[in-house]
């Protein structure tokens, strides 16, 4: 983790106009391929969403999402195969169970519901992915910067932020 922190320290803090930073966790088989499909069709969408690829949306541990917010993300997207189309039979059923629960928890922790979006995107739904990125970026832009650690500090919590990763 030392290296990651080092990277963080060296990177220049943006001084220009604020741009929303959104992290998208995508499953490889449907949603990542769907995002590729948007590219192949040369659909344009804002460059604010950075994709992290996992094999299945079932791998998306809520910890990944809270870490993203804690590290400065203004929004998080989670996309997986539609129910019934999971490459791993039912990995996305677990996603379906986890995400609404997480959304409530995040709301309780001071994160507006619109900052966390969970949608199914199939390998053929490039257009849906592009539309989703546009919508989410606009919503997050209108909400402004999140600065979750600061927000939590103002509420008097947040000492647990920036927890070290296992095995680091």
């Amino acid at each position, binding site marked *: 983790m030392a290296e990651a922190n080092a990277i963080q320290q060296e990177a220049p803090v943006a001084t220009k106009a604020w741009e929303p*930073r959104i992290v998208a966790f995508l499953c490889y088989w449907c949603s990542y391929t769907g995002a590729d499909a948007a590219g192949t069709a040369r659909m344009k969408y804002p460059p604010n969403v950075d994709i992290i690829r996992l094999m299945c949306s079932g791998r998306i541990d809520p910890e990944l999402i809270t870490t993203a917010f804690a590290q400065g993300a203004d929004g998080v997207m989670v996309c997986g195969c539609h129910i019934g189309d999971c490459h791993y039979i039912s990995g996305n059923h677990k996603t379906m169970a986890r995400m609404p629960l997480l959304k409530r928890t995040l709301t309780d922790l001071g994160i507006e519901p619109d900052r966390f979006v969970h949608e199914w995107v199939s390998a053929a739904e490039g257009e849906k992915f592009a539309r989703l990125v546009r919508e989410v970026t606009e919503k997050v832009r209108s909400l402004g910067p999140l600065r979750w650690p600061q927000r939590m500090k103002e509420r008097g919590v947040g000492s647990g932020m920036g927890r070290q990763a296992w095995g680091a």
Partner: protein
Amino acid sequence: MSERRIGVYICHCGGNISDVVDVKRVAEEVGQLPGVVYSTTQMFVCSDPGQVLIEQKIKELGLNRVIVAACSPTLHQLTFRRTVARAGLNQFLFEHINIREQVSWVSEDKELATQKALRLIRAAVGRVQHLVPLDKRRIAIHPAALVIGGGIAGLVAARDLAQRGMKVTLLEKRPFLGGRMSQLHTLFPTGEDAHAAVNKVIEEVVSHPLVTVFTNAQILSSEGVVGDFRTRVRIEPRGANEHLSYGGNAIAACPEETINEFDFGLSHRKAIYMAYPGCYPPIPAIDWHTCTKCGKCVSAVGGKGIDLGEQPREIMLHSGVIVLATGYDPYEPLYGEYGYGIFPRVITLQQLVRYLDPQGPTGGQLPRNGDAPTRIAFLHCVGARQIEGVNQRQPDGKVKDYCARTCCTAALHTALEIKQQYPDAVIANFYQDIRTYGRGHEAYYERASEAGVLFVRYDPYRPPRVEKNPKGDSAFVVKSRDLLTGGLDIEMPADLVVLATGVVPHDISELIGMYHCAVGYDSFLLEVHPKLRPVELAVSGVFLAGCCQGPMDVTEACAAASAAASKAAALISQGQMEMDPFISKVNEELCTGCQTCLTVCPYDAITRDEARKVAVVSEARCTGCGTCAAACPSNAIQQLGFNDAQVLSEVHALLAGAALA
């Protein structure tokens, strides 16, 4: 942690990337990141010079992590894994970043796109710090194949496997081979006899010394994984055996009759029966639900060859691969759908085909209305291309919204057959679209038009109606709006209404559970990749042949079966199989044995070692979804290649510089 020496290669993709992303600047800035000892741009990293440069720098600079930022990993990840492996570096110390499909092709602002590319590569630099060498898993493959289903797809798969020298066992649930194809009369686009064609393949299969066929076979359970499947099968008693020499006498003597499913209920058969003349095995079978064990068949054949007390037996089959060829069922219209079930002269296309078969219930004759020319209305897309809110929902709560693909050509083929036999017949097709998509299929459409077959295009939102004819000069009137004549309302008197019904998968819910098959929204089995890996299930070692995967005609089912057989044979002939290493691994020191992972695993790949009270992952069974890793409350179970350290570092590095306060 030993010193990281990271090399980053950024691709121009001949302008596809560099026209939008300032790759030179990205390379310069990435070069400043900790651990990065080399960063460069290349016109095409995937080209020979690009790959040579990767190999060269690994050797020259001692690179121990390699990142390529280029197209989508679905295109070239494997290429570059091989490249780094050639230079002696473990292939899983390579990371592929997508800056074409997900950056340059979707972005307009060059500055923002460049920043995005930079962030993604920075995230990869964070991630590769924590990559560890992984080895592909290798699993031994038992040299035998199991084919489930004795229809044309299963038969072709079994034949092809045997012809490649593989030992094959073919299981058929019903007492006779041939499946749905044996219920057809003639085949499009050649018009050849369906029985002759299927019997030819059956002959090739049963005469092959490497094939063992079991009919009346019911799969009880299946254990094991690719390379080592153990399938327990119950062989239901046939009642008659090969010592029976006068099967016809036994059938004639039987007093019990039931509905003949082979003719879709248009005729009756005895309790001891043959599916059709010339079927295989050429031995009658007893339907135990209908048989009263009166013994008349036994006396009729002099007591030899029939055993009414025969017991089921169980066998265990050991195979390295499995081919699923479980086929389809014709869509059964709902009661009252276009009058089906209410009026006996509203029949399905399958029933019509049975009427036209000289071996069928009427010896090849259509039911006629006196001497008058038969008037036949074909209704297309029954149980296919249905629309939510227009068509009635099926018992499973869905509408059959997919195209069944085969019925257009089949209906036109059958209409032409009728025209040949009954030149005076009046035939109209009520259709949404005519989809005669296959080679030679369009000719049926043209020939049908030339032969005077009528076409009425209906609006799928206002499907035709079948009503009793109040005037009584025909059995029915079919009412429809015809879009071809600008929306004229048409009424056609008809003696026979034929529903060109769709295709639904045969119910194999038990097998789906046993083999952990992925199933699509349409309830057909789901392949790994619809284009690149069309006959493989995500479960390793299980292949798909024919209509269990979707509607196919005989040509397509045979092609799919041959493909499945060749994939299965390739696996067997390698003797072992390589699999991605991204499986889950348990840190036994952290595992509390809580079994949460057992409950979320879609593949039953995790068990608990009761002695040590820890979770144990079956390497062969795990497919690497990582769902258990997300569920583990003590972070004890980790997915190789996507462990917490790797993914969290990626998140940290990605968001470096984001405003926290």
